[in-house]
């Protein structure tokens, strides 16, 4: 799926790498090594760089044929892999010739149906290559199938006279290719060597963790055939520019103060992209630093970033016992802040036998979650650290997910002495909203708000609580209220789990219409909007939050 990439304008700060990789073809006849190992930590943007390169070559003209392939665990059996690799190449080549990206992912058309399309293009040699490959399938010759697939880019480059740029994502998985069961024929990866030797089909290979590809290329068959390119974290300015651009695409304005959050994300494009998406899901129109922290606690617990890391954990730690050991081990590493050099000591500290630790450490190393070059280095990625904290609290301490989210949020609460926060929970019972109204009355008095303004706040809270009680369908029958007061404004968040509330679907009531209607209700949102400066409705996972905002100007104070 090479076309599933972020828009070009949001892909920033990788111009140098992109243009370098494009020039690989230019040096094809020179003695310079023209295969590249693209390395970098998870989420740093290796895949995205390949996809941007693919898109650029696809539309640029007919000189360089791009081919992108992502290795998947599900297709590592040689028979599946060979067919998948070959078919994807054929589709991508045809799509490139016809400049029709829809052909790429249309897996419903079998190889045989593609032959007539090449026939109309008068590419008889292509038809022969397809027929040869199908013969290998008929014969059941796995070795020939694999060779036929791997060498197809070089073969097409030779026949067409146009070089093929081969982009192999997650190439480290090729070490696990097998014939009938995992591990039965080690070393099948070496068959790629022949394809990489061809000067008309340079390869760009990505892999995680850092160093995984290097291990492959110390093997005799690959030694000296590739150079390394390390994709580094984005600098703060570029990261902020990317974040702003992504948010703008979602209609979200980002305040300047959010720049400092980019440091925390470590210039990782995946996290930046996920945060922008999370803000959009939470229906934010404007993002402050406070919004980002709040959004982050959700993102790292239940958002796409959590899902990303969860899938890696699931993929590499299938055994539940191993998974638990991994979580405890990682948590220990984070909290102790130091490298672990002695497994015996670690084993005693955690009460886990050394062999079990070793097996888990191997899995964590392969997955790219930790690095164990001589010692176990603590996880430095802030987001991964918080994800691990979340897993630990959830799976080891069995804490409530909502409380975990709050705990993570509270780690990063802004230390602003001028801000006061009050929280209360009211039951969904008759007149409980008056208790909340009483609370805001006292808060208002504390900061000398005029009685009229206090009454306005009370009315808005009452309406928000009634809405929450009547429409949320909340299973816990509770409404959470959070009052945040600073010298500039009062924010009251009224939150419940349950049904989503989309204010855009609420028709503005009019008195004339309501007077003649059986249904006379439906004034709540209008009332809130009338007495407050702003009313926002946000969705956080399965929770809906109405945020009432009153700016503190001189005319609202006694």
């Amino acid at each position, binding site marked *: 799926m090479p076309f599933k990439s972020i828009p070009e304008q949001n892909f920033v700060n990788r111009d140098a790498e992109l243009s370098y990789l494009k020039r690989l073809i230019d040096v094809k006849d020179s003695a310079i090594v023209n295969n590249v190992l693209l390395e970098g930590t998870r989420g740093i943007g290796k895949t995205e760089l390949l996809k941007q390169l693919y898109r650029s070559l696809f539309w640029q003209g007919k000189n360089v044929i791009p081919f992108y392939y992502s290795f998947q665990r599900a297709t590592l059996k040689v028979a599946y892999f060979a067919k998948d690799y070959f078919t994807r190449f054929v589709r991508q080549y045809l799509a490139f010739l016809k400049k029709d990206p829809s052909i790429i992912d249309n897996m419903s058309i079998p190889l045989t149906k593609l032959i007539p399309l090449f026939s109309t293009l008068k590419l008889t040699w292509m038809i022969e290559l397809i027929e040869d490959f199908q013969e290998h399938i008929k014969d059941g010759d796995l070795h020939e199938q694999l060779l036929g697939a791997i060498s197809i880019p070089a073969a097409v480059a030779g026949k067409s006279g146009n070089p093929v740029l081969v982009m192999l994502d997650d190439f480290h998985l090729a070490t696990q290719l097998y014939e009938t069961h995992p591990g039965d024929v080690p070393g099948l990866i070496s068959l790629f060597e022949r394809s990489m030797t061809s000067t008309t089909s340079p390869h760009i290979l990505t892999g995680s963790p850092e160093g995984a590809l290097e291990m492959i290329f110390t093997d005799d068959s690959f030694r000296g055939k590739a150079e390394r390119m390390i994709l580094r974290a984005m600098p703060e300015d570029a990261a902020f520019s990317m974040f702003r651009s992504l948010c703008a695409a979602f209609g979200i304005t980002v305040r300047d103060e959010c720049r400092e959050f980019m440091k925390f994300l470590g210039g990782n494009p995946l996290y930046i992209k996920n945060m922008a998406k999370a803000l959009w899901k939470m229906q934010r129109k404007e993002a402050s630093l406070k919004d980002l922290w709040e959004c982050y606690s959700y993102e790292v617990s239940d958002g796409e970033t959590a899902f990303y890391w969860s899938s890696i954990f699931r993929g590499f730690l299938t055994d539940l016992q191993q998974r638990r050991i991994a979580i405890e081990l990682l948590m220990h590493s984070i909290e102790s802040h130091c490298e672990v050099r002695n497994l015996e000591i670690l084993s005693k500290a955690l009460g886990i036998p050394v062999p079990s630790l070793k097996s888990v450490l191997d899995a964590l190393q392969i997955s790219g979650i930790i690095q164990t070059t001589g010692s176990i280095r603590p996880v430095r990625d802030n987001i991964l650290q918080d994800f691990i904290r979340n897993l630990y609290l959830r799976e080891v301490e069995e804490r409530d997910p909502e409380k975990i989210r709050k705990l993570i949020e509270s780690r990063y609460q802004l230390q602003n002495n001028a801000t006061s926060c009050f929280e209360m929970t009211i039951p969904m019972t*008759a*007149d409980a909203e*008056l208790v909340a*109204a009483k609370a805001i009355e006292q808060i208002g008095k504390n900061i000398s708000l005029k009685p*009229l303004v206090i*009454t*306005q706040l*009370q*009315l808005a809270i*009452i*309406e928000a609580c*009634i809405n929450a009680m009547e429409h949320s369908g909340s299973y816990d029958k509770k409404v959470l209220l959070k009052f945040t007061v600073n010298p500039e404004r009062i924010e009251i968040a009224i939150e419940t789990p349950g049904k989503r509330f989309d204010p855009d679907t609420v028709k503005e009531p*009019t*008195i*004339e219409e*309501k*007077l*003649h209607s059986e249904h*006379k*209700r*439906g*004034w*709540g949102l*209008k*009332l809130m909007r*009338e*007495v407050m400066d702003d009313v926002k409705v946000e969705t956080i996972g399965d929770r809906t939050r109405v945020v009432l905002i009153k700016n503190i100007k001189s005319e609202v104070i006694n």
Partner: protein
Amino acid sequence: MVVSKSLEDVAVIYPQGYLNNLVGESLEKECNACIGKGIKKIVLDFSKTKFINSIGISILLSIIEKLKKHNGILCFTSLNKMHEEIFEMLGITKYALVFRNEDEALKHFRVAVKE
């Protein structure tokens, strides 16, 4: 929850405290009873009403509708500033007379009777 008094052909009703569904239902019942007795001039005095929520507002609309059907007159008195602003904003004041207090409303009706 609702206190009322009748003065000739005028009824004065005082919703107390929090005009929500409960107080609203009592208020509506009281108004219906007045209309049933042939009293079509109703004064709602809000001097003892602390909050009116959206449910209370919808009940006021029902009362307005019913009185309109019977060619009655509804008056609001002793509205605090916020309730006055809200009634104005929602357009409710187009369907009711607003007086500063009960006396002014009664005075209005007496004048009207004399005429």
